[in-house]
């Protein structure tokens, strides 16, 4: 599929879309004017797609410095009467949460949708939190689509609902919804709110002042909170009359009920159908405010009910509440009674296992036994974890730091490596072992401050350029102002690599591909007052080692900016590959053991460089005691 089909595609056309691409089409159909995000798996492709097509679609799009700013861009656009869209991964909502909760109080004029992508089983995240808790915290409606078609449709519906209630609406996806590809039928594209302005590619709104509604000082907040809670209560009493939540009959007159939503619904439906179970399913797409009336009507004549949901037992508690408040006597099976696991994502096998525990039917599925020789092969399988790319400058930085510690007679074991989130987190793996503590984006510097306060150990923090702009600046100021003593390494690889290569404020380009001012990390570090600020090229090993040795002797906050582009950047200047001179190689394995570069392996007792992978970074030739690596 070409991206422009998302803009130009007509009603009725069908395309094979990723959930995240379907979200973009939904936003365009809904007539959004403004979209803002900070990238994060599994929501990143929404931003990547928008950055290609925003201008053609007549939409303003930005990669904001962090999720909180993105939330504020969307909120202010929506109170100015435009439809606005912000999206992030689940933990992004933690960053945005302070403004997020208050947006429900101050409300919106144009529709505002906040898409939040959860990551059950934690494919790429720092925790497994469930965004449905936030809907309850903020008292904001939440929609849970289960496939790409529903993602698109819920985007359109979400904007309508948001305008009707005059508050933002959350769309919760999971990795398996955002990264599911399926057939999506397009609808009509609505025109944007606001006014067209000569020379501007998207419509502009107008902000009408109303401090009583928009300024949350205590006298106002009390009123704002009351209005919100009455609004939600009224809406809750109405949900039964909407068509959004549906009952799917697997068999007529079924006596076993299933209540489910999102990706979990797909597994429940497939297993109930494949195993031909005596079931009907209440599919909750609008799951908060909790549709208690609907749940009561659905369960009241059942023999038992299963609640199938991913991550927290939230709906299950609502069902138990319905059972209790109405004096029903119906068993409820879910996570709390251990029918289903409490953590990680589900699949059909897990759902079937839960059904079998309670319903005692036999599973036709079988397991295979293998011959001994295959068992041996399985036993010999190598682990294949993600690794830093061949030629990645992060590897060079880690090697240089270790070398500087050695030459300064400081044991690595005595140094605390405060790490952060990005490709460089892969430094947790041997042989680097350069990640000891990590909480969240930007935490490496705050943690550095804390360890400097709490211990006499040396502390070295590692933070990427994008992460530094996201949330590293205020803790740096904290460290200098509070006279703490540690080293901050800013791994400036000129991109936001881990999430697929989005621009960040350190680059001369913005989210729509336009030229934009480049913010200097060095000048920010100098402005913070750090006593030692150096920019190094980490691929120059000697310079790296010497700089760290000096920093290790410095008192106060030292900032080392290791600047060298990521190998995946378009136009990356790939150098000629390296080869081994076997007359010189002594098979000491130092390169193998100290670099763990994917381009270097030991095959049949010889060190071999895979020239198709090698980027010619030359770190191996800089560390080899026998000069056995040569440029081809």
């Amino acid at each position, binding site marked *: *599929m070409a991206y422009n089909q998302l803009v130009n595609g007509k009603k009725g056309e*069908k395309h*094979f879309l990723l959930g995240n691409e379907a979200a973009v089409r939904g936003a365009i159909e809904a007539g959004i004017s403004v979209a803002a995000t900070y990238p994060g798996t*599994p929501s*990143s*492709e929404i931003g990547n797609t928008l950055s290609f097509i925003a201008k053609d679609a007549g939409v303003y799009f930005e990669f904001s410095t962090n999720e909180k700013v993105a939330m504020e861009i969307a909120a202010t656009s929506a109170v100015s009467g435009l439809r606005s869209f912000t999206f992030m991964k689940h933990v992004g909502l933690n960053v945005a949460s302070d403004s997020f909760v208050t947006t429900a109080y101050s409300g919106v004029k144009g529709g505002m949708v906040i898409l939040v992508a959860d990551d059950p089983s934690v*494919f*790429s995240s720092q925790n497994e939190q469930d965004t449905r808790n936030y809907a309850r915290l903020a008292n904001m409606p939440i929609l849970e689509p*289960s*496939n790409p078609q529903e993602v698109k449709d819920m985007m359109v519906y979400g904007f309508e609902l948001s305008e009707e209630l005059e508050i933002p609406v959350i769309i919760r996806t999971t990795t*398996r919804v955002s*990264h*599911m*590809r*399926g*057939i999506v039928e397009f609808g009509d594209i609505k025109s944007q709110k606001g006014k067209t302005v000569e020379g501007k590619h998207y419509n502009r709104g107008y902000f009408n002042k109303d401090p009583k509604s928009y300024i949350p000082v205590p006298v106002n907040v009390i009123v704002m909170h009351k209005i919100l809670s009455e609004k939600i209560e009224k809406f809750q009493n109405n949900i039964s009359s909407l068509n959004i939540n549906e009952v799917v009959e697997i068999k007529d007159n079924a006596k076993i009920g299933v209540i489910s939503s999102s990706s979990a*619904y*797909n*597994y429940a*439906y*497939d297993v109930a*159908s*494949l195993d031909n179970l005596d079931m009907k399913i209440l599919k909750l797409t609008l799951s908060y405010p909790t549709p208690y009336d609907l749940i009561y009507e659905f369960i009241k004549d059942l023999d038992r009910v299963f609640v199938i949901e991913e991550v927290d037992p939230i709906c299950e508690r609502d069902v138990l509440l319905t059972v209790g408040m109405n004096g029903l006597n119906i068993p409820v099976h879910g996570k709390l009674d251990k029918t289903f696991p409490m953590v990680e994502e589900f*699949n*059909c*096998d897990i759902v079937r296992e839960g059904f079998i525990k309670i319903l005692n039917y036999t599973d036709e*599925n*079988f*397991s*295979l036994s*293998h*011959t001994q*020789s*295959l068992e*041996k*092969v*399985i036993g*010999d*399988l*190598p*682990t*294949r*974890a*993600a*690794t*830093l*790319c061949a030629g990645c400058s992060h590897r060079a930085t880690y090697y240089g730091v270790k070398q500087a510690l050695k030459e300064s007679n400081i044991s690595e074991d005595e140094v605390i490596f405060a790490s952060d989130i990005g490709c460089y987190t892969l430094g947790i793996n*041997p*042989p680097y072992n350069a990640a000891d503590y990590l909480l969240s984006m930007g935490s490496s510097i705050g943690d550095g401050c804390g360890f400097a306060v709490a211990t006499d150990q040396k502390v070295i923090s590692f933070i990427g350029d994008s992460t530094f702009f996201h949330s590293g600046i205020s803790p740096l100021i904290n460290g200098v102002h509070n006279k703490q003593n540690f080293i901050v390494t800013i791994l400036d690889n000129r991109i936001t690599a*881990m*999430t*697929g290569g989005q621009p960040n404020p350190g680059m001369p380009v913005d989210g729509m591909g336009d030229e934009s001012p480049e913010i200097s990390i060095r000048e920010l570090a100098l402005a913070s007052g750090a006593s030692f600020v150096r920019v190094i090229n980490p691929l120059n090993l000697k310079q790296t080692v010497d700089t760290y040795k000096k920093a290790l002797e410095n008192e106060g906050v030292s900032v080392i900016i290791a600047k060298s582009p990521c190998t995946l950047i378009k136009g990356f200047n790939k150098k000629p590959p390296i080869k081994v001179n076997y007359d010189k190689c002594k098979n000491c394995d130092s390169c*193998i*053991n100290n670099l*763990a*570069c*994917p381009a270097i*392996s*030991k095959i049949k007792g010889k060190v071999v460089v895979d020239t*198709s992978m090698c980027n010619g970074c030359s770190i191996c030739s800089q560390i080899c005691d026998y000069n056995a690596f040569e440029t081809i």
Partner: protein
Amino acid sequence: MVKDNYSIYICGVGGQGIIKTSTIIGEAAMNEGLNVVMSEIHGMSQRGGSVSTEIKIGEYKSSIIEKNTASMILAFEPSEVVRGLSKANKDTYLVFNTHPIVPAQIAGTNSYPSVDSIISSLKENYNNVYPVSGNHYAEESGSILSLNMVLLGSAVAVFNFPLDKENIIKAMKNNLNEKFHKMNLKAFEYGYNAIK
């Protein structure tokens, strides 16, 4: 009602072009009027870790293949076909590239079974085992970057593959850079003929 139909588990190493290959198959299925859902993994594992996609053609809602039920495992790397075996049964078609990618090993942390032992032990246990010299054909076609199209060709050539070859080629055109179409087509045919 769910009709049992055709499911393909595609696996390999991050960066081998697995998602593109899967999308082409899915889009061809859609164009033939079939229902299709597919699951992709993006994110951290794309940096050289094990990756997989799952395609289910038929009236399914879930895009994750149940254990022992895949119609085909298409692996871009020989050790990865073994890692995917929980999805297979005796009749599952195992189509895989024979060129190993040995993960970075540091002092004694990783072994790698010989490719010959992988092939022979699979043949002992499964009825439809199809090793393909994928890297060789890709290089013959002009670039290692066409490896995914070699393997796509091999998949399509398998007995009972549910989609029409011409529809796959059409979907290739819609999803790949036009500049490389000739090379990709050549690679596709190499892979196809390796099995047919």
